């Protein structure tokens, strides 16, 4: 059993992460989102909450990054997985720095190119998945199926 940190911002990113729960259930998974109620609605107790941000807002992003550093160091996960967005990218970044295996799953909302967070995550994560076959490439993200 691995220690998994599964991260997604509230909203579409979180709905996608929840659809992938069967893959996380066998493991010691700690969930992270940006709105506690989103987690509770899916019956997840004790999720961590990061301040929401996007990469166009430097001050909020820096605040989120600091919280992410504390969170990831405290949990010391073996594996970090995120469906986005910016807070998920930060978890991947810090996770990679402490030696966790990291997986970015780009949102199905990005049908023509990877999100900004996704393009950054593709550089730093161990593996990057796209949910659209036509966006896969070698080198580049891998297509392994989609939540739709």
């Amino acid at each position: 059993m691995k220690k998994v940190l599964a991260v997604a911002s509230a909203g579409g990113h979180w709905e996608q992460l929840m659809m992938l729960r069967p893959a996380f259930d066998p493991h010691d998974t700690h969930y992270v989102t940006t709105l506690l109620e989103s987690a509770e609605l899916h019956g997840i107790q004790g999720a961590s909450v990061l301040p929401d941000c996007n990469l166009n807002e430097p001050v909020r992003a820096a605040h989120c990054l600091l919280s992410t550093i504390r969170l990831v160091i405290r949990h010391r996960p073996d594996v970090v997985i995120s469906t986005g967005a910016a807070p998920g990218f930060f978890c991947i970044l810090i996770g990679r720095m402490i030696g966790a295996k990291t997986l970015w799953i780009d949102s199905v909302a990005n049908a023509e190119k990877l999100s900004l967070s996704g393009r950054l995550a593709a550089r730093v994560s161990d593996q990057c998945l796209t949910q659209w076959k036509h966006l896969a490439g070698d080198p580049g993200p891998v297509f392994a199926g989609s939540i739709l």
Partner: protein
Amino acid sequence: MIFVTIGMQLGFDRLIEAMDRLAPDLNIPITAQIGKGIYQPQNMSVRRNIAPGEFEDLVQYAQLVVSHAGIGTVLTAQRFQTPIVLFPRRAELGEHRNDHQLATVRQLRGRDGITVAETETDLTKAIIKTLAISPRETKSSSVSLSLLKTIANFIETGRV
């Protein structure tokens, strides 16, 4: 009830104004979540923001959801098998940072329970058509097994 929602991040007055103009002709109550929009609707019940729990209730009980092309709303509607009409945001009108919602609807067009409208005229047609078809005929979406297996394998081995 029709539930109109534009997501948690940005206002989307073009959709809210269109729905407000259309509301008197539809003869069905409408609840609209208008976020940071400036326009004040006259013909719909209005909420700025809605907590996730109540949001799910509204999607579940609505006869139809009319929404920006946000994937969270699409997935929630599919989970409760509520038909949805999508009206994508456009970056050139300052409605989002980029045009990923147009790309999203190009891929979602034609799926069960999803109708795409890019103009106010299309929106009217799509709503009237979808209301006429209800009760619900949508199927809930299913996650691809290969995606779950790939993730499970990554957790175990660190590779995909």
